[in-house]
């Protein structure tokens, strides 16, 4: 396995389903930060066969909501002074505010400039959310 320098501080997003790493990279806007970011893809994994992994050497806060939507199975490790000090797993958020957009072509939010649309989790398995305005079901990423 490639050895990327050991992280002194920051966040390691582990157990990302292979292929979702870049999606997370984009959604967290990691391109816009000046800190060191490493995206590893297709790492051999016992549990998952292959996984992606992201290391961010930063003090910034991560918006967990978006991670839960893209890949609720990831683990997030927080590192300080070279030591792991917190490890969390994610679940799908019950309510999502301002991250998703409604895919119903008849929904008013497609025509008016609506900020911060609220979505309510309706089906955990299908990752379906209900739009607060039109009640249509939407998923955050398109099912392939």
């Amino acid at each position, binding site marked *: 396995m490639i050895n990327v320098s050991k992280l002194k501080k920051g966040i390691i997003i582990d157990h990302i389903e292979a292929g979702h790493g870049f999606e997370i990279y984009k959604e967290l806007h990691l391109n816009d930060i000046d800190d060191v970011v490493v995206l590893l893809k297709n790492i051999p994994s016992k549990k998952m066969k292959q996984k992606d992994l992201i290391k961010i050497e930063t003090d910034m806060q991560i918006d967990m909501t978006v991670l839960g939507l893209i890949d609720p199975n990831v683990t997030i490790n927080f590192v300080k002074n070279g030591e792991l000090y917190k490890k969390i797993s994610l679940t799908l958020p019950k309510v999502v505010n301002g991250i998703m957009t409604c895919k119903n072509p008849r929904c*008013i939010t497609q025509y008016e400039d609506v900020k911060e649309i609220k979505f309510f989790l309706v089906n955990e398995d299908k990752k379906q959310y209900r739009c607060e305005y*039109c009640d249509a079901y939407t998923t955050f990423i398109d099912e392939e």
Partner: protein
Amino acid sequence: MLKGRHLIEPGDFQLNEIESIMQLADNIIADPEGYSLVCKGKLLASLFYEPSTRTRFSFEAAMLRLGGEIIGFDDPNNSSVSKGESLGDTIRTIECYSDIAVIRHPREGTARLVSKFANEMPIINAGDGGHEHPTQTLTDLLTIRKFKGSCDNHVVGVCGDLLFGRTIHSLVKTLSRYQGIRFVFISPTELKMPAHILNQLDPKSYQETTSLDEVINSLDILYMSRVQRERFVSEEEYLRLKNYYILDKKKMKGAKPDMIVMHPLPRVNEIATEVDADPRAVYFAQAKYGMYVRMALIAKLLGVEDRK
């Protein structure tokens, strides 16, 4: 308290709140004169972003019969809407002049969106695309109450386009909150009740069938609906499904003597005109109750019913 609240979908109100609207509607029906000035000095904004003469007349007649006044439009091309003004700006402006607003719009979710811009002015959803039309549901409930005594303990047959019918979805969701309601869903397989509605019901509370003849004798209420042409890509398919159920005298023979036939109107051909004379056909009375229930709703949201 309903004063100052919005009605975007029937679920916005508790059953006891709906009940209080029904009771006020009863009082208004018993003494329309007594309520003819309760909205004096109040202004209703009637915002119809798509034409719907029936619904608009019902609301405007309701407000006028309460002694209130109306401003508004029924053709957005003649209003500032066509100049690209946002809904938020329109509502904020309207609120400067009006006490209550009724909105009809072709896009789903519009009424909910608009209600976020109104500070104190109650918003009533008069239909937002295929989404909700709560005053139709209130109309249906008042009709059931008037003819059957209450909304509890009925076998309710719902027949026609159960897939796209928003009126039906709202009614079924709302009636399921009452006691002892059993549904019989009657539709061609292509137009069955969608899963997202069935999932909200107790599986023991409904049955599905394609045959109206087989079940009509078990019903206390038969709610008919039309099949809408615009839902179909092929004209052939539309014509076939449109003629699937036609309620006529012969079918009515198999029904209970006190069953009522309801329909949100306008009908196409799903109820033969020969049924109109049958005392069990209550769909024209339904339209009248629609106005009374809107009177009660407006008076409640404005908090003026005690001005009587």
